[in-house]
């Protein structure tokens, strides 16, 4: 019977070699990698990785203990009810920017939820300077009620000082 997928999360100060060392250990025991997402957040490097075939969560944590310690990583392993080939296609993109302040993500995502949008991918960043930070957020999602409710909710967000652009997306398949 196929082993269940595990979700590995690893976070630590960014330095070269983290991915290569972690995946070398996993490859060495015959593990299978599924979908992964890795990115630098702040000065940290964060990894989320679907893994199976390397044992249960405790065994995987044991395999990676030496690498974890060498790189000073925080490691978490969970068994998850996941499967490959479950992709969804976004049909709307929302891009938000403004002077940074608290509450932007909360306000925007609450409005989009109300408009029937399911978020598939969200990335946000703080740019500008330390004394004049700006907040930028890019969201791709599915618009279950069409794009009009999203455009209406965006108009309300503009009243709160946010610049928001909504763009319909269509995947070209040929």
């Amino acid at each position, binding site marked *: 019977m196929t082993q269940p997928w595990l979700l590995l999360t690893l976070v630590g100060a960014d330095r070269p070699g983290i991915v290569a060392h972690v995946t070398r250990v996993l490859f060495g025991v015959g593990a299978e990698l599924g979908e992964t997402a890795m990115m630098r957040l702040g000065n940290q490097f964060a990894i989320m990785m679907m893994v199976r075939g390397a044992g249960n969560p405790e065994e995987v944590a044991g395999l990676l203990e030496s690498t974890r310690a060498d790189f000073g990583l925080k490691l978490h392993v969970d068994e998850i009810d996941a499967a490959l080939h479950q992709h969804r296609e976004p049909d709307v993109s929302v891009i938000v920017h403004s002077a940074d302040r608290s509450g932007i993500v909360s306000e925007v995502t609450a409005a989009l939820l109300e408009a029937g949008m399911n978020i598939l991918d969200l990335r946000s960043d703080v740019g500008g300077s330390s004394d004049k930070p700006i907040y930028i957020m890019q969201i791709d999602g599915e618009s279950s009620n069409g794009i009009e409710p999203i455009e209406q909710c965006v108009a309300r967000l503009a009243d709160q000082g946010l610049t928001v652009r909504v763009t319909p*997306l269509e*995947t*070209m*398949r*040929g």
Partner: protein
Amino acid sequence: MSVEPLPILTYPDERLKTVCEPVEQFDPELREFAEHLQHTADLGPSAVGIAAPQVGRMQRLCLVDATRAKRPVDNNGPLVLINPAITNWKGFAVGREGCLSIPDYTGKVIRAETIELTAQDIQGRTVTFKMKGFEARIAQHEIDHLDGILFLDRLVSRHADLRER
């Protein structure tokens, strides 16, 4: 049409990386093939185009049909493009693409925003078209197939953000 759809080659089949030969014979067999290819695309998952090499026929023929877009877009109607060549292009846009030959994956690709192309129709007559936006994207994707190029070869960062179309 009651005939079976043509089997679609899927990545990493080497034929998808092969440059196709020009079509030289414009005969009833070619017309029948183009109809069969259209039938095959009709049965695929919401395809707006298909190219002959995707069914193993290594000739420069493709179909482009922007009338099948979910949202109305500028278009030249359903097209059979034989020996197509892009003669002019302008601007760039990022868009998401998928492919009948690459199931269960989509990604962002940069394409020219507007193009002009020349081709032959099913009877061998020279035709020219101006295309923009979504239709231009379809044509570029399909003509790439004729040159053995897949959208995977043109992927850009998933966070690329030129103007989406």
